[in-house]
């Protein structure tokens, strides 16, 4: 199996290097052929691995394949841990990546950086696979940083745009703040356990929960809680949880295919995956779980609201992604890791679909992204229309669609959870369902229905996108509908994650729900009777229809009425304002201040020149003997040397 795993990882890397270094020689067709072929191989092998593990019951693979370095008791290795969780992630990542690769042929058709783009997305696939397949913290961190770098490169892909290069720097720096916590967490675990290997570290979890450390005097924390919260700070950066969420909306400056691949389906879910992978640690710290659930719930609710006031089609989807990541985080905090991962998987399909559909609209309208200049596109772009509808329905949790199962179970799990803060989280995610439906269908109606507000020049040759764009849409639409129905039973309630995810018995809310689960059909019919979420979603769609189809003038009037709230939302709760004016400016001022005050005044001005002045004073006495700037120093040194040697001779 080791050969298979290495092939899965190294194929995209090799393709990326070829496309990147020899892009000019192999040409456009060469670049996309080789990268698509490589990712296709990775996908097929991943699917094979998933089948081997899930169906044929192959044993978990956990071994090192390469020794990076060894110092003292510390070994740094590259190794793979492949179990149910990993196999699922590998398949999702490579499948979405494959769709995006194909789609890119159409989307980047006219771009000068065509080969470079393919090289980057293949490199990303490699990095993401390294991240999910790792069996140790160091490689996890390697993948974690590498996906961050590729994301940086891709957000700033159109490097001539000032907004793009601002956005990519912002993304990287905000993530660095997250990494700060993440690496601290790793270092803390290493310090307490002496190992970087997952399995060995997990073995110490219970002991660590008993060891307490004092960070602020008088406050005793368990070492495990501190480590878990540090790790979670990393997840907050990568998975864009408040207050480190600010980079994700701006990352929409990058080309749409990567918004789908990186900023919706894969990289941003790395934090969720990481926490699920670390379940043996988080389970032993209720405090950490509580932090997770509260942060997740806040993100899920507040960022959803922001989606209501955006006019840029990609930004609506971006805020929707933030909100859904919040949902997944809530699931983790409720110890329903399996539900979180299940939502991650279904979300990867339908959110990638929504992004790619948005991209299809954007290229059809010649890079128009403002929804106020769209409308009535249904008749021009039927495939995009229907696939968007499928994606939106999956997102809001329409009964039977994939998002319905994952979200409904997630909400029920939170309802049953005993984690402190779960009650608050329950209300957040429940009201969030209404908000989700409202912004999703606001977007849907504004883009595809109603009055045609399109530029007449563009309208004259408006048509459906080419097959390389629509085929991936269809390929993603199918799992968006059926994947939940088909897999909810076996994956969530069939013990699929038993080996990969550890849940304490008293926290096992998914297990409790499983006891009441009697097949997908029964689950859907039961929801009509028992699920408030279903009716909230319906209400959201209805309100969207009322506001944007039936009485289109009303939203404007409402926003005038609640001006204060509207302004708060338009300014995104002033997070960006605070970061730019307080944090960024403060840091730069501190640097400038230190430069002027520290180096120039205190050290050079005070100490160095001050000592020169003392020497100068001294030299007044000996002025007749010495003159000239350099000699003052030399003279002082000779005196000093003589004095010191004299002292040594006397002393010894």
């Amino acid at each position: 199996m080791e050969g298979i795993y290495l092939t899965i990882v190294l194929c995209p890397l090799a393709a990326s290097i070829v496309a990147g270094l020899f892009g000019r020689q192999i040409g456009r067709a060469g670049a996309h052929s080789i990268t698509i072929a490589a990712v296709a191989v990775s996908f097929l092998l991943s699917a094979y691995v998933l089948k081997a593990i899930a169906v044929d019951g192959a044993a978990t693979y956990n071994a090192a394949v390469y020794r990076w370095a060894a110092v003292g008791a510390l070994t740094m290795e590259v190794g793979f841990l492949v179990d149910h969780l990993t196999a699922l992630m590998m398949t999702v990542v490579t499948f979405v990546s494959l769709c995006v690769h194909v789609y890119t042929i159409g989307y980047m058709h006219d771009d000068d950086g065509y080969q470079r783009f393919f090289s980057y997305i293949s490199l990303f696939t490699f990095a993401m696979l390294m991240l999910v397949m790792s069996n140790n913290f160091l490689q996890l961190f390697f993948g974690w940083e590498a996906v961050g770098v590729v994301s940086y490169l891709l957000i700033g892909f159109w490097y001539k745009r000032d907004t793009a290069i601002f956005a990519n720097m912002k993304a990287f720096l905000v993530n660095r703040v997250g990494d700060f916590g993440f690496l601290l967490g790793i270092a803390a675990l290493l310090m307490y356990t002496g190992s970087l290997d997952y399995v060995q570290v997990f073995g110490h979890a219970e002991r660590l929960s008993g060891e307490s450390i004092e960070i602020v005097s008088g406050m005793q924390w368990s070492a495990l809680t501190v480590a878990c919260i540090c790790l979670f700070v990393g997840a907050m950066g990568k998975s864009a949880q408040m207050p480190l969420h600010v980079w994700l909306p701006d990352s929409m400056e990058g080309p749409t295919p990567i918004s789908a691949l990186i900023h919706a389906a894969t990289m941003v879910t790395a934090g969720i995956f990481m926490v699920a992978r670390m379940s043996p640690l988080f389970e032993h710290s209720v405090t950490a779980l509580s932090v997770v659930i509260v942060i997740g719930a806040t993100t899920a609710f507040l960022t959803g609201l922001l989606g209501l006031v955006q006019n840029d089609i990609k930004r609506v989807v971006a805020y929707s992604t933030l909100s859904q990541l919040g949902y997944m985080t809530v699931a983790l905090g409720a110890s329903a890791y399996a539900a979180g991962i299940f939502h991650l998987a279904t979300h990867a399909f339908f959110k990638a679909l929504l992004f790619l559909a948005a991209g299809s609209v954007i290229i059809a309208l010649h890079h128009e992204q403002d929804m106020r200049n769209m409308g009535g596109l249904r008749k021009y772009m039927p495939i995009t229309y229907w696939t968007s509808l499928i994606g939106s329905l999956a997102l809001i949790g329409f009964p039977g669609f994939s998002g319905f199962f994952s979200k409904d179970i997630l909400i029920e799990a939170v309802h049953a959870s005993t984690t402190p803060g779960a009650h608050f989280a329950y209300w957040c995610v429940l009201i969030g369902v209404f908000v989700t439906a409202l912004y999703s269908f606001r977007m849907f109606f504004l883009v595809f229905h109603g009055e045609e507000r399109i530029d007449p020049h563009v309208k004259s040759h408006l048509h459906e996108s080419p097959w390389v764009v629509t085929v991936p849409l269809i390929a993603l639409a199918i799992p968006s509908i059926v994947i939940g129905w088909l897999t909810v039973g076996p994956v969530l309630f069939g013990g699929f994650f038993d080996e990969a995810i550890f849940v304490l018995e008293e926290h096992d809310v998914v297990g409790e729900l499983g006891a009441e689960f009697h097949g997908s059909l029964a689950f859907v019919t039961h929801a009509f009777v028992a699920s408030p979420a279903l009716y909230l979603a319906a209400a959201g769609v209805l309100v969207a229809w009322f506001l944007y189809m039936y009485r289109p003038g009303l939203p404007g009037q409402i926003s005038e009425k609640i001006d204060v709230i509207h302004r708060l939302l338009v300014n995104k709760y002033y997070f960006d304002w605070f970061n730019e004016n307080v944090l960024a400016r403060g840091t730069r001022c501190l640097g400038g201040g230190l430069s002027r005050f520290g180096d120039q005044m205190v050290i050079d001005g005070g100490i160095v020149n001050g000592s020169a002045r003392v020497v100068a004073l001294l030299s007044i006495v000996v002025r007749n003997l010495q003159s000239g700037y350099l000699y003052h120093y030399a003279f002082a040194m000779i005196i000093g040397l003589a004095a010191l040697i004299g002292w040594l001779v006397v002393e010894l």
Partner: protein
Amino acid sequence: MSALFADHLLSWMIAMPFLGMVALAPVRDRVWVLSGTLAITLINVALALYLWSGFDPANDGLQFVERIEWMPTFGIDYAVGVDGVSLLLVLLTAFLPPLCVLGSWDSITSRLKAFMMLILLVQGAMMVVFTALDAFLFFMLWEVTMIPMYFMIVLWGGPGRIAAGLKFVLYSLTGSLLLLVGILGLSLQAGTFDIQSLADHAYSQSSQFWIFLALFLGFAIKLPMLPFHTWLPDAHSEAPTAGSVLLAGVLLKMGGYGFIRFCLPIFPEMAHTFAPYVLWLSVIGILYGGYMALAQSDLKRLVAYSSVSHMGFVTLGIFSFNNEGVEGAILQMVTHGLTTGAMFLIVGQLYDRTHSREIADYGGLQQRMPRFVAILSLFAVASFGLPATSNFIGEFLILVGVSYENFVFVVLAMGGIVLGAAYMLWMLQRVAFGQPRTEAASKLTDLSVREVLTVTPLAVAVIAVGVYPGPLLEAMDASVTYVVERLATVP
């Protein structure tokens, strides 16, 4: 013949640059001067690789030792040898000068031969510093390194070269003076200049503190540690490209090497006494250097302050007194030599085109200079320790090492890593991306083949060490263990 060669390998490596200086003397043609110097430095690279291949990593003592009586009356010998610590620095000293020659190919227009001789002189002197087993020999050549560097700055430097050169000399002299006092203090008590015997002598309690302090300050000024660093930005920014590369690449490392060679093994107790203060100064230096780098508008000053921050990591690692920390620190010294050397080379290539170091004069270089931007980006991300580049391994090991001492230092040092990303990426954004901000920046030509070749070896080394640091760590492991165990015997 072969015995003459094999038994005196280190002496050959030391002699090669000096022989080269002599050989250059009659040469008049510009191209011959350049290619001659390049050839001599490349021979030393080959010798260094041969040295490495013959080095036994399992041996924790000194290897390739040569000893000749020099001034028997004073007990001064010409004695050289390498252990795992010095080997890597010798490699670095051999590796950088050919790149300096390539980097000066077109940019040095006046008195070229003299400049090449100075490069060779620095290399020869540095070779001795890193291999000397005799404290007097060490000190003498330590002093010699200062002179060529001073002339490089004041004769070939930028507009502020006179002041920068003076500042460099004054600081260096102060440091040397303290070092001299320290070394004299040692030998007067121990009655020898042999570094190993110095370590075995028991010094009187009252003098230990003062000798340690003198040595420590001498090395700290050279490294430089906060608050003795203000000579560095001036010297770095005014020096010609090759000068900056040698300064950052190898000269600073004398400070770190001195700590490991003198301060730690000779005075383990004192090292423990001083350690808390040094660690605090280190983390303050890391953060301070980072903030300062953020505030710079001059490219070379930015890189110089990033050096201050990186050197903070070096002392942080050394004074955590464990294998992880010390090996991380040595690796950090080597990789800092690679990345910062490369940074100065590539910034120098930009300077050659426009004669401006101001960040504000550039912008949008990606459009006209994609190769340049690709290389600059690689070293920028390496500089803030991205995994799979050599700097990551060094910094990570240092963080691990210091975490055994006190976790607070890890937290603070990590802050420096975040700042590192901030100043490097912000620089990259302003220089490479967006639209050109000046007429000149929009008309630049991309790097020539020679210019790419100048930095390619460094790029390869940065990634190779990042992916496969094993051989370097193995080479130093036994020697570092020896030092660490010595330190651990202190009650």
